[in-house]
């Protein structure tokens, strides 16, 4: 019995130590305080002899998970993963996204971006994706506070990420907005039986740009 207790204590100690590096940062008061205080008016105007420097606004940008891990993928077994994006700004801003290339394995090739059930979804146009026989990689955006855009009005509508290697125009997660916004992004992946086994990966960039 004594050994069990020691084992459990040791186990709990290790878990606590690991959580220090793995735990998500809890929200304070529900959202993020912007420092210094938000304002559209110039916060600082300094005349350095003949130079005039003015500063405006501030913002915060949170991504709940910086890696979307699908694990080992199996044909005709669609997988979804989610993360949350939170933004807050005193000035207007844009949140854009793009992938550096399609999911790629140096030995096995690419997993193409999804075209959805009808074969029509692209980085500009969304479409329903429910069939297990529709393959590829795409995402759905759900706004919990804010507006993802018209493309995601139906829960099963998906869109491709803009592929920078093909010079495709950016996806806009948020466009021309101010204040707080919160989005839930669902990443979906499905492969056919013809897809070569392997570990595929790519990089997705979420770019927060204030307006000028």
């Amino acid at each position, binding site marked *: 019995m004594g050994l069990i207790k020691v084992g459990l204590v040791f*186990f709990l100690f290790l878990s606590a130590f690991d959580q220090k590096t793995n735990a998500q940062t809890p929200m304070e008061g529900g959202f993020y305080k912007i420092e210094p205080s938000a304002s559209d008016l110039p916060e600082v105007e300094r005349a350095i002899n003949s130079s005039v420097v003015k500063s*405006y606004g*501030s913002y915060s940008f*949170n991504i709940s998970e*910086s*890696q979307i891990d699908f694990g080992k993928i199996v044909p005709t077994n669609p997988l979804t993963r989610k993360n949350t994006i939170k933004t807050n700004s005193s000035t207007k801003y844009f949140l854009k996204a793009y992938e550096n290339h399609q999911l790629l394995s140096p030995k096995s090739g690419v997993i193409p971006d999804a075209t959805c059930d009808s074969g029509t979804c692209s980085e500009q146009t969304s479409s329903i994706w429910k069939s297990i026989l529709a393959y590829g990689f795409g995402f759905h955006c759900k706004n919990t506070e804010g507006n993802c855009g018209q493309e995601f009005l139906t829960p099963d509508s998906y869109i491709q990420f803009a592929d920078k290697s093909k010079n495709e125009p950016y996806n806009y997660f948020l466009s021309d907005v101010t204040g707080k916004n919160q989005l839930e992004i669902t990443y979906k992946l499905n492969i056919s039986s013809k897809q070569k086994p392997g570990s595929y990966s790519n990089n997705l960039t979420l770019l927060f740009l204030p307006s000028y």
Partner: protein
Amino acid sequence: MKKLIILFFFLLALKPNNAYAVPLDISLSPALITIKTDGKDESTPKIYIQNKTTHNVSYDISLVPFQPSTLKNGEPILQDSIDKDYNDLFQNIIIIDDNSPVTKVDLAPQQKKVIKLALDLPTTLKKRDYYFSVIFTSSAENKIENSTATNINQALGVNILLSYGQQGQIQGEIKEFSASSFVNKGPVSFKIDLKNNSNNFVTASGNILIKNMFGQAVGNFDLKPTNVLANSQRIIENSVWNEKFLLGLYSAKVEISLSPSGPILTKQINFFAFPLEYIVFLIIIVSFIYYVRLRLKKKQTEN
């Protein structure tokens, strides 16, 4: 005893796998810096950046020129290539962290840093406006073996509007000032499309004055100060008169100053307001009264 040891190691194995998917959480200030300089002094604007997570983070720093969006909404459109002028400029911008030049910033958990942009602009640099973003980009996670994954880079921008050299003549025009010519109630939204014909960016400010058909001022509100880049156009937002009940002919005059020393641009429009809902209600009441009178008359005649 053996069983207990096996159980102990079994419990150890159940310990959750270390995930590489850490959160990224940054506060950044300011969002925009405007600089007007003739380059005689070293300008060192500051950027405050705070890591709000419980782990170390590292952000690469890059400078990217931008142009205004053709949608005239203030969106910076990052450029894929840089010309000679921007190349010359960027060679004279040093990013300083703790008195050392850096190309990336490392932040400990909850750490806040002040990054300085040292602009030491030589006289040989072309005197003109430069518009660019300072982009902070997180490093991608490590690859997970035997797994398919998407790594997310967080990129944050601070926009810089730099006007180098003596300011040229400021010129501009109001390309459009409009509202619905007929409204039945407020609020009334005005569209203001402002064109900057100067070679330097301007910060436009102004107001809209509204008068009724008797010439009395019934509304006056300030416009949001708006930066308009050199030789470009921008729609001034939030130009809304919040008055609810409106009746009659109104005139609205916009006055915009492109700088503290002018020039001042003006334009006037008229619009007509008629509260249709009230009129329809009035017609129904009058019709009802008329109908009742008619019926009463008919009854009297029959009697």
